[in-house]
């Protein structure tokens, strides 16, 4: 219900339309922008063709390009930067199987997978960069490392079916080839 935030000085003017049931404005422009203008500039009328927003400078500058590059590298290196943090969490959570380590491992495994799933979206982000392919590769490697770390954690927690004991339940009892019976002489 709060009206678009006007500074204290607009209070009296804002109170005006509130008191009236209706008001008619004969000036040009939308009623929405009117409020803004009213708040900022009061009842000053602008000349036709005047725009109070600055027109952006569309000419590409060298510094911006560097910024974009930097930004894209940030995105690409993000997963790699997380690895030390993950290592620390792994170390802290230990190898016991309980709810928190499991949750952490799940998070650790899920995030890279999610990132890999949305690879195309990331590529779109990196579109503007000149080193798009290299960054993409770094991003991929970072995520793969993250998931490898998660798998390693699973392994050290014993959650991976890598031992013969994990497949024991699936071994069928062997079929017997001979039929044998008998006993003490009755």
């Amino acid at each position, binding site marked *: 219900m709060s009206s678009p935030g006007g500074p204290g000085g607009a209070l009296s003017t804002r109170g005006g339309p509130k008191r009236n049931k209706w008001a008619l404005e004969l000036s040009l422009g939308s009623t929405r922008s009117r409020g803004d203008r009213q708040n900022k500039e009061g009842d000053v009328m602008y000349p036709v063709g005047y725009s109070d927003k600055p027109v952006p400078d569309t000419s590409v500058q060298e510094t911006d390009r560097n910024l974009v590059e930097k930004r894209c590298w940030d995105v690409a290196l993000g997963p790699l930067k997380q690895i030390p943090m993950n290592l620390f969490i792994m170390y802290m959570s230990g190898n016991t199987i309980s709810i928190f380590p499991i949750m952490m491992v799940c998070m650790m495994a899920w995030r890279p997978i999610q990132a890999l799933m949305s690879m195309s979206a990331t590529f779109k982000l990196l579109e503007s960069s000149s080193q798009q392919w290299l960054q993409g590769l770094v991003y991929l490697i970072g995520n793969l490392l993250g998931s490898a770390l998660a798998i390693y954690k699973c392994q050290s927690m014993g959650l991976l079916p890598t*031992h013969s004991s994990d497949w024991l*339940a699936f071994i069928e009892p*062997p079929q017997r*080839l001979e039929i*044998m*019976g*008998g006993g*003490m002489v009755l």
Partner: protein
Amino acid sequence: MGWSLATLFVSLRLLCFTAAVFEDQVGKFDWRQQFVGEVRFAVFDTNSQASKKLLVATEKNIFASINSRTGDLLWRHVDKTGPEGHIDMLLLHGQDALVVVGNGRILRSWETTIGGLNWETVLDTGSFQSAAFIGVQDLVKYVAVLKKSALSLHYLSNGHQKWVENLPESNTVQYQIVYSGGSGQVLLLGVVPNSHIVIVEYNIEDGEIMRQKSVAAPWITSLQSSCVVVGSGVLLCADLTTQSMYTFSLQSVEQTNMNQILLQTLGLEVASGFQPVLISTQPHPARPPLSEFVLQLGPDHHILLQLNDELISPLRDFNPSFLVAFATTGEKTVTAVMSPKNTTVSVDPSTCSYFLSSLQFSLSSNVGYNVVVLYLDAKACSINLYSADTGRRLLDTTIIYHKDPNGGRPAKLYVHAFLKKDDSVGYRVMVQNEDLVLSFLQQPGRVVWTREEALADVVTMEMVDLPLTGTQAELEGEFGKKADGLLAMVLKRLSSQLIVLQAWLGHLWKLFYDARKPRSQVKNEVTIETLSRDEFNLQKMMVMVTASGKLFGIDSKSGTILWSQYLENVQPNSVFKLMVQRTTAHFPHPPQCTLLIKDKNTGLASLNVFNPIFGKKSHIGVPALSRPVLQSLLLPLMDQDYAKVLLLIDDQYKVTAFPSTKNVLQQLQEMASSIFFYLVDSNQGRLSGFRLRKDLSTELIWEVVVPVETQKIVGVKGKRANEHVHSQGRVMGDRSVLYKYLNPNLLAVVTESTDTHQEHSFVGIFLIDGVTGRIVHEAVQRKARGPVHFVHSENWVVYVYWNTKSRRNEFSVLELFEGMELYNSTVFSSLDRPQPPQVLQQSYIFPSPISTLEATLTEKGITSRHLLVGLPSGAILSLPKMFLDPRRPEVASEQSREENLIPYSPEIPIRTEWFINYNQSVSRVKGIYTSPSGLESTCLVVAYGLDLYQTRVYPSKQFDVLKDDYDYVLISSVLLGLFFATMISKRLAEVKLLNRAWR
């Protein structure tokens, strides 16, 4: 941290072993039945009119009191088995029952109301002959015990010995009868066979010999079988060879010869070859016996006679009559006679006149002695009461006894007579049949109770699944039958659906009908008609074979006997083997059990085929077994009717197949090369293995000889055919697998040394492959002695023995492992096993002797195993197999903890909560039978011995069932609450959204 984890671990462990029942679970899943066995002596307590005690002493060395109104046991004393506890004599006087135990070893006096011991005296050695009350002037104060060479007199009040006297010439004279007519002396009767009778008279006060004389009797062999004392001290003997009776007055001074009375002169004739039997009665021990007695002339011919001044006169002829018994109440003595019902008592003219004269006699006399007579027949018998002193039949005293068509013939008759309000004699009888059924009858033939005492000696048993309900079976049957046209199939389906609908409506109607009745009246009576498998197959049919040759079908849930069948002509020392040839799974073919009975004396065997659910004898032709049968073998092969094939091996090692249809013979020919069997001859110490040939002959392929001079084979056990092992290996701490050596052909053979000296005795255990004869493992336990109990299952053998050096019972466990790799994971062949298994062994101390050992069994073998140990105290202990694990480490390591191994400790504890039968002791437990149920967690257990006990065990707790006290109300109310909360909040959210949209 570590400490708290350890406590948590321990408490968890304690939790998972607690298997005791709660108070409200008592009798919910279990039942016990107590028995006494074949009755040897039975006495009715006639002390007071309202008394309902029946005292019995049995062949099983049990002295018990039965409530004669209900048939329940009031109390029971179980003595030692064997001759040591044998009950020689039971005498009842007032409230005290005197029992002579162990061939005259101990004399005990029991208080009969509560079964407490009054006193006990150890008697001098010597084989027991007889015992009798000695009365003086209508008072019974002493009991005389006659041994082979001594006579002793004891006070009734405290058992103290009054005097003991050695008998004169006891090495030549066999003293057999002790008699007192209440006149102040003790008369002792002895015999020198085929020569003379010796009579010795003792003074009651000091045991001095008053008189001694001998009477020539060249025809006599034994006093006990052919002589009685009747009347006022007249010895009466009956002899077959001379066809006559002899009388001799014991009191007279001048008489030197026995009076001979030819039976011909009485118009009597003894059935050929039948030793005549005399039955007399002495209503009060301090008074002389009656002068009336019964003479049995043939298996079904009795005659009531009277001795009058050395003259014998017949009172009444009972022909035919099977059993006769005397009973006394007040001043009246009666004779009960059992006779076949449909034949009238044939009275020939001579006895008729006697009958008339005795009638007049009884009219003139005030005191009437009555006699009861019983007749037997194929279908029904009538029991009648006769006045003992006249032979007159008492009016309205007939009891009709309907014989069970599947039971045996009546063998013994016990009469309980009482005076009615109008001073006439009423009576009840207890009949013991050949098949050990005790039935208690009252007029006019109502069976008050029956007891199946044959169940006190169960030899073997099986549990059979119950059939599906009629409707289920109907649907199953539809698919079981052969297809015959589309229309017929449609019609069949429609009709079966109609039947299902009808059954469901009937069920609904029954529910509605029962709901109106008070709760106590709605009883789920189990009858053969209502039998059906329950949801989890927890209710089964117990087929029990008893030593007397009676078969029983018992409902495992309630213990109700649903059918019984008596097999006649079963020799007392026969061997039984029960096999389930066809289960209930093959509808519409009926289930089929086969009982192999082998007579030990002749070696010949017979097959009995019956339906285990209904107990009906099957009409399938059984093969004639002309040669002695050595063993039988139930093959997993089936004929076209789904009956498993039974092979019988005779003494020439030829094989007979049953059933032996063409189909079966063809299958046998195909399979012959892979069918093996083994025979263990304990007498010759030989184990031999045979292979079947195509022509059903056999060839010997291996033989192992255990020298009989040093050791004797006491037992051999293979694995149970219905055992499943779910896990093929054990997971180690490092998560590798140690594979089990699961050889289905492995045999555990236990031997005991013949030398029983405690330094040299030993117990040997051999693990032998039954196909190849290879000895897989051999262990000798030195300084150990039997009896050895053992269980062989999965990949382990557990055995119990007595350690003679340390004087304690020890458990030893052998476990076999194949190693870290499986040799062949798809098929198992004993012929292709290059590596021997690894064998691990550990021993433990068990703080109690044991009577029997068995392992639990479950459907799929996932549940952990427990050992069921029957203890002599009557408890059944459920011991986790976990405690008997040879991999238990001496020092716990990280890996062993991971594996859940308990560190080794030599003692196995007995925790009282492991007793699965809480306070329901099972006396003399002889065997435990385990059977899987439909629930993986549950194993059905039946312990048999003197008593029967049935229960369920849950070795890994009930992981697949909700608990009894599961809070359904809480859970459903929470669910409902959440449901309504969701509905309400959904509605509220909608309202709120709508409001916001309006704004």
